[in-house]
């Protein structure tokens, strides 16, 4: 085991990685300013000097900044806490207590892979709301730090002698624990094909337009060069090109999905260890997550029709989120989970699910009509767009379709209370099933407005460290029974520990 009690710096090559990161950040924030120079036709020597001198200065500044921040950054373990000192001009001393650490991630970006180093990120949550990122540590150092932190996070795991002897063997080489999902090429393609292509197509378009924006002048001058006759022909053609255009759009969406999936999930491996869930993935940037079981506050199984045909579900694991940054990403996705994988995970995380549920609740029937009306109302807009006869026929057709879909949606809404777990199911095309341990609940809220109160109906929200989860429109007496049961289970779990 390495000695982490004295202040340590990162690996010296970290200076190079930091320099590149600083430069990339600078260029990313300032590159539109450079575009006019690239496209200006006559570059005089004097203007070149105006560009090159500041550019060189910026480059030198970035490297100097990287070296200084490398030099002024150190970390150590002291009194059951991780101490970090950083800052070039303004010194900052960060103290992260072990119990606040949620997870330790190892990652390898292209830079780390080039230098044979590893990055390490420590995620924290709750009131501390801070995190630590080391961009360059040697692999051995990262693994021994990860093992040390993991052992201190969860006191139930002691660093046993054989683990100390070969920390890397248990951590990465073998995934000695129970393997979960691995993605080979064909499964990777399947995962890619079941992504949301429409969203990805729009994403691609947004990126294109944002890239195109600074070049607007160039494009418009190019358009001016085209003779007006050709332009008229082009605009006529564009009508004929509508359907191929849509097809191209969708195709590019599928392509983007495949590329993004490969970047994210390339050589995806996951396993269930004694400590928690281990996940490793990524092409350019290799990410290795290790989420201790005790830090998993919510899991959601997500699937849609196409994925179910392939027998796939995606598992979303949510950890505690820092209260001041609500969209900080502390979610880990495990794609392509098959039914036996799901069984394995649930047996470990929620052993009480095998028994029959204590309560099984559905929303009140009223909600069905509300969903239906909500789905049908937009069709009234058609009356503004087309003459009344087609509008009436379309809206009647839509009434029938939405009647069917809203019935299916309504029937899919289910809350089940097990001995120590609450499961909330929703959706028939896009299905999701959320599981929360009662012993991890942070609070329960019963919410209704005055008209619902008269009917004895309301919404129940389960507050967890990973965020709230609500089940709406349920009867008051059922909700009260669920709340009392959940609170009792929570209290008995707390007094039992």
């Amino acid at each position, binding site marked *: 085991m390495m000695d982490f009690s004295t202040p340590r710096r990162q690996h010296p090559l970290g200076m190079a990685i930091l320099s590149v990161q600083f430069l990339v950040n600078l260029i990313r924030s300032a590159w539109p300013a450079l575009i006019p120079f690239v496209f200006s036709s006559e570059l005089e020597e004097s203007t070149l000097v105006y560009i090159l001198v500041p550019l060189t200065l910026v480059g030198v500044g970035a490297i100097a900044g990287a070296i200084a921040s490398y030099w002024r950054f150190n970390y150590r373990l002291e009194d059951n806490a991780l101490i970090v000192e950083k800052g070039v001009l303004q010194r900052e001393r960060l103290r992260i207590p072990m119990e606040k650490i949620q997870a330790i991630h190892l990652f390898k970006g292209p830079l780390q892979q080039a230098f044979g180093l590893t990055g390490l990120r420590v995620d924290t*949550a709750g009131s501390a709301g801070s995190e630590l990122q080391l961009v360059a540590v040697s692999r051995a150092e990262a693994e021994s730090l990860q093992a040390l932190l993991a052992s201190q996070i969860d006191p139930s795991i002691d660093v046993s002698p054989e683990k100390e002897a070969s920390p890397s063997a248990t951590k990465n080489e073998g995934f000695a624990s129970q393997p979960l999902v691995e993605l080979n090429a064909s499964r990777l393609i399947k995962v890619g094909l079941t992504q949301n292509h429409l969203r990805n197509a729009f994403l691609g378009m947004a990126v294109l337009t944002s890239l195109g924006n600074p070049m607007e002048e160039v494009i418009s001058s190019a358009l001016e060069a085209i003779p007006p006759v050709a332009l008229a022909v082009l605009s006529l053609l564009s009508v004929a090109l509508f359907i191929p255009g849509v097809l191209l759009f969708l195709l590019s969406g599928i392509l983007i999905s495949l590329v993004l999936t490969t970047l994210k999930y390339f050589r995806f491996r996951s396993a269930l260890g004694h400590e928690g869930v281990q996940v490793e993935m990524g092409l350019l940037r290799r990410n290795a997550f290790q989420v201790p079981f005790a830090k998993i506050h919510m899991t959601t199984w997500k699937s849609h029709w196409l994925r179910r045909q392939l027998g796939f579900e995606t598992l979303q694991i949510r950890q505690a*989120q820092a209260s001041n940054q609500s969209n900080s990403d502390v979610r880990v996705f495990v794609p392509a989970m098959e039914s036996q994988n799901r069984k394995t995970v649930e047996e470990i995380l929620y052993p009480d699910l095998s028994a029959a549920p204590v309560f099984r609740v559905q929303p009140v029937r009223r909600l069905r009509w509300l969903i239906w009306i909500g789905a049908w109302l937009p069709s009234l807009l058609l009356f503004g767009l087309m003459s009344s006869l087609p509008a009436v026929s379309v809206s009647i057709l839509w009434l029938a379709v939405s009647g069917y879909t809203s019935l299916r949606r309504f029937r899919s809404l289910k809350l089940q209370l097990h001995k120590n777990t609450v499961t909330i199911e929703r959706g028939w095309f896009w299905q999701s099933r959320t599981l929360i341990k009662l012993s991890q609940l942070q609070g329960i*809220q019963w919410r209704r407005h005055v008209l619902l109160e008269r009917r004895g109906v309301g919404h129940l929200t389960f507050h967890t*460290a990973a965020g709230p989860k609500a089940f709406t429109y349920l009867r008051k007496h059922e909700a*009260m029974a669920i709340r*009392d049961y959940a609170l009792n289970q929570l209290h008995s*779990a*707390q007094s039992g520990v």
Partner: protein
Amino acid sequence: MEVPPNPELNLDNLPPLGAIEWVSVDVNYRKMRLLSWATVQLVMLLLILSPMVASLLGHVNYSDIHLWWVLLCLQVPLSGLWFMEEWRGFMRRGYAVRERDITYQTGWLIRNTTTIPYGMIQHSELSQGPVSRWLGINHIKLFTAGGSGNLRIAGLKEERAQELRALIDARAGRS
């Protein structure tokens, strides 16, 4: 993984939350809420009536002012609704302290009843602005992990707030 011991429960014998007694917050808090209601209403009214004032002062012709009553017609029911929310909502506002959790309920139009177990409270905070200091009331905020379950119990008498905080801190530290 270790599963905490989890004894079987008889569902009919659970202590129901509905039967407990609610402690209402300090009456001065209603004063404070109504004060803020009155201030906002006064400002709104002045804004709506500003054309009339201008015409009285001779800056504008009265005949040039149109439709000022539309705004007034909107403001009167809204302010009435808000007043009802404050007046009737105050009677419903209250908290209940139990052995292992604390519950707070608010609202007349939109009603909320939130329960937090002491064991899940990360830390607590007392806060007091200038007006609440003048009225001698205090607000207590309870923070839970993740922040989604945070609870703010507003309008407690100062000594009561201190007591409550001491009680919560003691119970939170126990488990």
